[in-house]
């Protein structure tokens, strides 16, 4: 029994293993870079028309019946083909072009179908085929281009490549990702010559730049050398100056000894000279004392003696002359004095008499003049006074006759009284009674007797006694308040 179970289990395991193996044989998966081309049974094919007879699977798994269906893989990887082509350019220049074409099978089913039909068994030879195709095409492409275009104008190269190969490769189900020209061999040296002018220009510029740089460098160098020489010169000049100063100082130092000797000798000579001078001086002094002084003394003695004798003689002569002169002068003086006295006396007498006569005359003249002047003055004053009085009176009369008359009366009151009183001229002494009234009465009477036209005056007097104090000169006591009973009035006799 357990044996049966074991056999059943083994059979089941085997069956499962067989099933798994079968499934693995039937289930095929397309990797990303490949397409499965399945043929052998009628299938509905995606993206392709009926009648193609196979189906294309990309990127997924599919069930395949082993023995019934055939599965082939078509690689979608990138391929490249080296190109070595001898070709001739548009200008007729032969070139050897080395390049590379990078291509692959198109990703769409049409391209895969085209490529599958053409290359499925020849995938290894695909590069060779493409090389053959491209070799011819490249010749035509290069033939349509110039060397300059190939070198410089990549756009034109790719454009030409597409134009020549694009449709061609479409037929093969391939797409060209890139066409690269690696190398252009140039047996005629065209490209080299093409580059030559530019190279020459570059070389020229380089040489110019080099020369310029050299020139600048040389200039800088020479300037530097000049500066160095200048610095050297300055330094040498300075050194020479210092050397000269050193030599000078050395010479001075070497001369110092002899100079000191000479100075010392000079000092000695000076001192010796001084000594000699002193010696001479001393000798001179000696000579002076010994010789000159005695001679001088002798000469002085003689001269003094002679002078004394001469002076004595002169004095004697002078005395004599003086004596004579004095005698004559005395005589003259005496005569002159006598004559002068006489003259003086005569003159004094004359002048005295003249003075007396003159004084007398002058006195008389002065007296006469004084009298005359006095008379004239008096007359003049009188006339003036009268004229003034008449004028005043006239004006007064013109203005206020009564007042003027009163004023005049008052002014002339003493005269009037005198005139009145002349009646009393013979009276020696008069006693007036009855105070002021009595006096007034008596005066009135006297006045009545004395002059004409005195009525008015009397009236005035009466009014004055009533009103106000009388004008001055009459009597200060006429106010009548405390009048003394009697008083004496002096009467002048003279006018």
């Amino acid at each position, binding site marked *: 029994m357990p044996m049966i179970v074991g056999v059943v289990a083994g059979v089941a395991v085997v069956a499962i293993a067989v099933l798994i193996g079968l499934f693995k044989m039937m289930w095929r998966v397309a990797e990303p870079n490949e397409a499965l081309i399945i043929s052998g049974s009628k299938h509905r094919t*995606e*993206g392709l028309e009926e009648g193609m007879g196979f189906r294309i699977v990309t990127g997924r798994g599919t069930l395949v019946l082993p023995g019934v269906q055939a599965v082939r893989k078509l690689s979608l990887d990138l391929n490249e083909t080296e190109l070595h082509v001898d070709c001739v350019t548009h200008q007729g220049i032969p070139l050897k072009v080395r390049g590379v074409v990078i291509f692959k099978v*198109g*990703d*769409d*089913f*049409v*391209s895969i179908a*085209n490529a599958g039909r053409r290359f499925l068994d020849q995938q290894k030879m695909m590069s060779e085929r493409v090389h053959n195709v491209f070799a011819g095409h490249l010749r035509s492409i290069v033939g349509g281009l110039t060397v300059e275009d190939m070198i410089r104008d990549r*756009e034109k190269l*790719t*454009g030409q490549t*597409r*134009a020549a190969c*694009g*449709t061609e490769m*479409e037929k093969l*189900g391939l*797409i060209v990702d890139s066409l690269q020209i690696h190398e252009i061999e140039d047996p005629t040296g065209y490209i080299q010559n093409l580059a030559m002018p530019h190279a020459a220009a570059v070389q020229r510029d380089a040489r110019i730049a080099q020369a310029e740089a050299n020139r600048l460098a040389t200039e800088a160098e020479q300037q530097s050398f000049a500066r160095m020489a200048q610095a050297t010169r300055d330094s040498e000049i300075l050194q020479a100056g210092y050397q000269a100063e050193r030599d000078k100082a050395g010479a001075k130092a070497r001369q110092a000894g002899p100079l000191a000797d000479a100075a010392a000798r000079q000092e000695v000579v000076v001192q010796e000279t001084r000594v000699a001078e002193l010696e001479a001086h001393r000798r001179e002094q000696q000579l002076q004392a010994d010789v000159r002084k005695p001679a001088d003394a002798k000469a002085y003695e003689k001269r003094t003696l002679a002078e004394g004798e001469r002076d004595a003689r002169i004095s004697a002569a002078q005395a004599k002359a003086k004596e004579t002169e004095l005698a004559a002068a005395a005589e003259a003086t005496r005569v002159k004095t006598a004559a002068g006295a006489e003259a003086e006396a005569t003159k004094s007498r004359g002048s005295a008499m003249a003075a007396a006569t003159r004084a007398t005359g002058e006195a008389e003249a002065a007296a006469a003049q004084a009298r005359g002047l006095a008379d004239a003055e008096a007359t003049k004053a009188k006339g003036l006074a009268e004229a003034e009085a008449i004028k005043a009176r006239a004006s007064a009369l013109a203005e206020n006759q009564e007042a003027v008359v009163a004023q005049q009366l008052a002014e002339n009151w003493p005269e009037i009284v005198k005139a009145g009183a002349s009646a009393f001229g013979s009276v020696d002494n008069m006693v007036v009674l009855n105070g002021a009234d009595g006096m007034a009465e008596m005066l009135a009477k006297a006045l009545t007797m004395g002059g004409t036209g005195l009525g008015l005056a009397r009236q005035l007097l009466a009014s004055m006694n009533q009103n106000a104090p009388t004008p001055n000169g009459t009597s200060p006591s006429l106010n009548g308040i405390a009048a003394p009973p009697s008083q004496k009035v002096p009467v002048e006799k003279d006018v």
Partner: protein
Amino acid sequence: MDDASMVGLMGRVTGTVGPGLVGEVIVRVRGGAEHFLAYPATGTVRIERGTVVMVVEYLPPRTVYVTAAYDS
């Protein structure tokens, strides 16, 4: 995939498209970007590199006719 789905896709010109030229556009398709040979859809137009274009016709396997997507 459906061929008709190419029509209407946008792409960029990588090689000048014009009369007498075989141009190239790169289009985002099938989860990647593929390039196609391109011709102008309307006769005489020249479309410079870098221009955004729209696919108006697709001729399998690798040819499209394009027109400029924006008025430039």
